[in-house]
């Protein structure tokens, strides 16, 4: 059978053949074709010669110790902590902050209800809260004269 250009595999197939990256059946097919096709055979030989040339590319080994050069630039690695089991003790760590948050919320809510004259208004309140009254204890205003209502 006369080989035609239409039968020729693409460069990609010849390249993969060179690398041994074809399936067994593809390898047999492409290799078989390259063996009898003058164009593909020549191309495949060129790839082989190219490989030989590339592998003779020289390289002068580094005469410096990269490890020593970069040693001071390596950030210390944080030691991985072993995974902690969930523990009830963890909740005790949060207790002080939790109590403080609850106290702040309660105080704020109480003051808010007082201002609004809500149900809390009828609840016995600490004596110290009297300083917030419109008429402080003793009818005296601790502040500036404008505190006193003007008599008409």
């Amino acid at each position, binding site marked *: 059978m006369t080989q035609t250009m239409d039968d020729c595999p693409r460069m990609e197939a010849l390249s993969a053949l060179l*690398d041994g990256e074809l399936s067994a059946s593809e390898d047999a097919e492409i290799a078989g074709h390259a063996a009898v096709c003058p164009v593909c055979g020549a191309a495949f030989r*060129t790839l082989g010669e190219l490989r030989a040339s*590339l*592998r003779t590319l020289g*390289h002068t080994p580094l005469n*410096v110790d990269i490890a020593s050069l970069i*040693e001071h630039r390596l950030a210390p690695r*944080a030691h991985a902590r072993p995974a902690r089991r969930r523990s009830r003790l963890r909740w005790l760590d949060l207790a002080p902050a939790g109590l403080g948050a609850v106290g702040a919320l309660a105080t704020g809510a109480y003051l808010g209800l007082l201002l609004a004259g809500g149900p809390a208004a009828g609840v016995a309140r600490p004596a110290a809260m009297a300083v917030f009254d419109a008429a402080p204890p003793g009818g005296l205003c601790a502040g500036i004269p404008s505190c006193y209502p003007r008599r008409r």
Partner: protein
Amino acid sequence: MRETAPDQNAEVVRARAGDRAAYAVLVRRYQDRVHRFILRMVGSRDEAMDLTQEAFIKAWQALPDWRPEAQFHTWLFRIASNTAMDALRRRRTVEWVALEEQFDRAADSPDPQAQLESKQRLKAMDAAIAKLPAEQREAILLREVEDLTYAEIAAATGVNEGTVKSRLARARAALSEQFKRTDA
């Protein structure tokens, strides 16, 4: 040289845990390979030296993300490749120097004429590699110089194997043309 997984993993695991001595062993083992790859990617010896150090520093920082199922050298070349590509992107033009003139190799042949021809061929090959698009250059260097498989090149460059196959074919086609011209 292919390392066995248990050999490389033990040192990498220690380095990942913060053992600097273990990491120094890894650096010394791979520094020549990483440097020669980066050198041929960027074409400048001074820049390659800086980038090689940068790659190993990045590798140290990224070690906590390394998983034992990954080949260490493939993972390391991924970092080296990204480092080189980033440097190339920062450039406006590729600056290439005749690398082969810096090599001090023992002559393959005592014949001066043969030596000259060999030197000219290497110089032409270096020039041709430097002219390849960066992605093709990367693929051909990892395949032909570093001997990585298609799967390893795919992992190192972040593309699929089909793309690796295509890039290698195009790189070889371009280099083959240069090869023929040099021989002519």
